C-alpha cells in the first residue's frame, strides 16, 4: 500500500521543527528533574545539619535523567512529528529540519542562558572564597545551570512563538 505525500498548502497547520520540539522537551525535562531534585534535597536540608545532607546522588540522577530524557524525548518528538505529517499525507521533507531561523533562535537562547549562568557563578565564587560548605557550592552551581537552562528554554519558545 503506497500513499502519495503532498506539499503542505497554506491552510495546513504549521508544525514545529525538530529544533523547536527539542526545546520544548528540554524545558519540560529540566523543569521536572529540577523540581524533583529540590523536592528531595530541600526537606533533607531543613531537617538535618547541612554537612550531613546527602545531595550528590540525587543531583547525579537529576543531571543524568535530564541528559537522557532530553535526547530520548527529542528523538521521539522528531519521529512523532514525521508520523503526524505522514498521517495527514504531507511530505515531511522541508518541514522538520531546522534552518537559519532556528540557528538565530539558538544563538539568542544560548546568550541569555550564559548571562544568567555566568552571573550565578559569581555567587559560587563568593561561596568558595568564604569557605562555605560544599552543599551550598554544589547546589548553587546546579541552580545556576537550572536557571540558565530555564531562561534558555523560555527565550527560545518566546522567539519561536512571538518572534524576535
Amino acid at each position: 500500500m503506497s500513499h502519495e505525500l503532498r506539499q503542505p498548502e497554506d491552510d495546513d497547520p504549521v508544525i514545529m521543527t525538530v529544533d523547536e520540539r527539542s526545546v520544548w522537551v528540554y524545558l519540560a525535562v529540566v523543569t521536572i528533574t529540577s523540581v524533583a531534585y529540590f523536592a528531595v534535597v530541600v526537606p533533607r536540608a531543613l531537617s538535618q545539619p547541612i554537612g550531613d545532607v546527602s545531595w550528590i546522588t540525587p543531583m547525579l540522577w537529576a543531571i543524568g535523567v535530564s541528559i537522557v530524557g532530553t535526547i530520548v524525548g527529542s528523538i521521539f518528538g522528531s519521529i512523532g512529528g514525521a508520523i503526524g505529517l505522514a498521517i495527514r499525507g504531507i511530505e515531511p521533507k522541508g518541514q522538520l529540519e531546522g534552518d537559519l531561523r532556528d540557528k538565530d533562535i539558538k544563538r539568542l537562547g544560548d546568550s541569555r542562558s550564559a548571562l544568567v549562568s555566568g552571573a550565578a557563578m559569581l555567587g559560587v565564587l563568593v561561596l568558595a572564597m568564604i569557605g562555605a560548605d560544599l552543599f551550598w557550592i554544589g547546589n548553587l552551581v546546579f541552580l545556576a545551570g537550572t536557571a540558565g537552562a530555564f531562561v534558555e528554554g523560555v527565550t527560545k519558545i518566546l522567539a519561536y512563538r512571538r518572534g524576535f
Partner: protein
Amino acid sequence: MPPKPTKVTNRIRALRFECGEMTQADMAERLGVTRQTVIAIEQGKYSPSLEMAFEIARLFKRPLDDVFRYQQEDGA
C-alpha cells in the same frame, strides 16, 4: 499572546499570489528554508538576514524595497 512585531513590514503574501499563487511551501523550497520560517517572515515575527531578504526579492523579481519596508518610529 500577541506576536512581537518587528519594524520590518513586507508584501510577501501579496507577491506570492501575484506570482502564480505560490504556496508558502513552494517559496520555502526555493529559498532553502522551512515553511515555518516563511510564515514567520510573512507575519513579521522574524526579520530575515540581508542575504535572505535579497534572495526573496530576487525570487519575486522585485527591488528589495518593493518587498520589505522599514517602519520608522513615527510610523512613516
